[in-house]
């Protein structure tokens, strides 16, 4: 370690410089807000059959959140509607006070993870139009993510190519839990199209793909689902590497969103160690697994792991690389990371700038 840290108690720093927030969740104010962007056929479908995902609940999540919409209690917009549904309130509560120069929108309740693929495509496309109409065209700090019907590779690739060159979009968005692990061939058209149009692919924690949330079946509690995102994401990353996605798509960049990053070094060491002995099973890999990870993967920071001793976390960041972390708040969700409290004094100016803004601008191609 070449960085010294002050004791915990003095570890708050005022944020005068601009930051990027790489995980903002915009919401619809009303149920029919998407209707202008969808064929009438789908309005009727939604009213009649609702949203049918790979779990049994018609409304709400299978694991009840700790508070409504998993959101901060102070994030209800004054004009009504759910948290994250008002641009003016988002500006007032997040973008202006924290000096957000770049905010990346990741719509979660999109068409992803639906069982009906045609409906999934229609919803995703509508959400992409809606992001422009309601958000990015009204505030130039905000950039959108292309959401796609992830289980239908052909339709997903078409949606990605439709948005090629549109400066409103800075990434393609997938969720971590799908019908199969994300390295599987059915998802390769997404990677091919993303590489072609030059956008990174973000993989946000969450979703349901029909598989139990653990290899021993369904757990009981919301906390298990939340902590478990880190395990799902490790498995996603292992799948991407071991299937050879980065050999096939050498220019592909991927972002691991809201699943932590502290596990990254241990996973990379385990992959490398197993690869030493089992490489004959995966001859399509030309390099050590850790090298693909180092070259192709970025990580958003929230929720930052929380050790008793902060210097332990910063040793882990050294192992990952300061050039690979993207600051995120997860607004408006309850486990929001307060930008001014994340990094203690003692981090070099260069690392601080990269962590809060520079890495994101570079990855997302923002001047």
């Amino acid at each position, binding site marked *: 370690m070449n960085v010294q840290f002050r004791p915990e108690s003095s570890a708050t720093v005022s944020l005068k410089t601009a930051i990027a927030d790489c995980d903002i969740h915009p919401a619809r104010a009303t149920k029919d807000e998407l209707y202008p962007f969808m064929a009438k056929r789908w309005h009727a479908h939604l009213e009649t059959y609702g949203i049918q995902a790979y779990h049994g609940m018609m409304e709400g999540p299978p694991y009840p959140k700790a508070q409504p919409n998993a959101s901060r209690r102070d994030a209800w917009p004054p004009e009504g509607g759910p948290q994250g549904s008002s641009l003016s309130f988002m500006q007032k509560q997040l973008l202006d006070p924290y000096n957000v120069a770049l905010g990346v929108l990741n719509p979660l309740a999109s068409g992803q993870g639906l069982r009906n693929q045609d409906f999934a495509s229609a919803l995703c496309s509508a959400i992409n139009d809606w992001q422009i109409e309601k958000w990015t065209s009204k505030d130039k700090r905000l950039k959108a993510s292309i959401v796609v019907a992830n289980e239908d590779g052909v339709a997903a690739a078409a949606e990605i190519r439709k948005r090629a060159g549109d400066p409103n979009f800075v990434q393609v968005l997938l969720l971590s839990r799908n019908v199969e692990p994300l390295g599987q061939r059915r998802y390769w058209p997404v990677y091919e199209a993303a590489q072609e149009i030059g956008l990174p692919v973000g993989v946000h924690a969450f979703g349901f*793909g029909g598989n139990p949330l653990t*290899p*021993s079946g369904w757990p009981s509690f919301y906390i*298990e689902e939340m902590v478990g995102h880190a395990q799902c994401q490790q498995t996603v990353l292992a799948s991407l590497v071991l299937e050879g996605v980065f050999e096939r798509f050498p220019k592909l960049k991927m972002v691991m969103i809201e699943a*932590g990053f502290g596990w990254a*070094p241990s996973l990379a060491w385990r992959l490398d160690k197993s690869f030493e*002995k089992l490489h004959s099973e995966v001859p399509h890999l030309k390099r050590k697994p850790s090298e693909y990870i180092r070259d192709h993967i970025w990580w958003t920071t929230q929720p930052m792991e929380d050790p008793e001793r902060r210097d332990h976390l910063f040793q882990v960041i050294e192992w990952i690389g300061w050039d690979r972390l993207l600051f995120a708040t997860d607004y408006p969700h309850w486990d929001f990371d307060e930008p001014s409290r994340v990094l203690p004094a003692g981090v070099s100016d260069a690392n601080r700038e990269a962590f809060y803004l520079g890495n994101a601008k570079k990855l997302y191609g923002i001047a």
Partner: protein
Amino acid sequence: MTSPLPGGVDCDLHPAVPHLTSLLPYMNEYWRDQVTTRGMTDLVSQSYPTNSPISSRPDWRPAQGKPGADIADLQKQALDRFGVAYGICNPLYGVQMVFSEDMQDAFCRALNDWLAKEWLDKDGRLRGSIVIPTQSVEKSVAEIERCAKDKRFVQVLMLVMGDMPLGKRAYWPIYAAAERLGLTVGVHAGSAYHNPPTSIGWGSYHIEDYVAQATAFQTQLTSVIVEGVFARHPKLKMVMLESGFTWLPAYLWRLHKFWRGIRMETPWVDRAPLEIVRSNIRFSLQPIDAPPDPATLNRLFDHMQSDELLLFSTDYPHWQFDGDEVLPPGLSPDLVRRIMIDNPLATYGRLQAVKETTP
């Protein structure tokens, strides 16, 4: 290289069942007939294909048969080689994969009797783990009580990937029996394949399954902690076997953060997860998923904030290290003594029971 101390405890040895037919003498007539009439095949799990490089170190692989099937090999290559006082046998025969609880029960009973007769009887250093038919908690408890009469059984053995998360209340009678009888609960890598082997479905490769084992241990640790197993059974020790441990610090940082945020959901978890791990959870040494430089590994030991968590293991005959390099370089002599002797003796209450009761 760090030299092993004599008199240690090897907490993870894998004696191999040569074939399902090897268990026939330990089954009743009905099950002998079932196995032969139905032409049942050997229960080799995908977790450890016999010829996979990780299933045996090249120089430990016998000319014929399964690695770990010959007690003379195990004595020479593991017990004698590392000078241990005790070695704990964790059979990984694929009895958990069958779907009938009756068949699973019959196979577990046969396996436990086979272990006692063909291994424990033949070397006084060996101790056993009780393999249980987890699809039936009632039968599992009965098997624990039956085997525990033999003091050489020191542990109950479960797989990290089974039918339900291990913290689920349905399993608690197993933990009550283990705590009452002074047995640890060992959780070993491997799957019953009753669920997909990862939390996001079926992957393509053996290496993928093996890498995923570590994540399965993480989800199980969350389950046993948040369900409150250790609030109910404070004296119970659980040992994570072949789990890896370099993931533990960052995993606990995350769990701790969410526990602080939403502990109202599980109010019976009355201690921080890290404290529960320190008092009730142990980890076998091998495999060590870390880069080979001692500085990084020592940072990780520092991140673990305890020198009581690790228990010496060779994982014999699995291939985790070469030569005699079972201990990573750069360990202090004090830590070596804890890992090899103090921690295992403190964890396995029944290890020395035989010595104490038979003068």
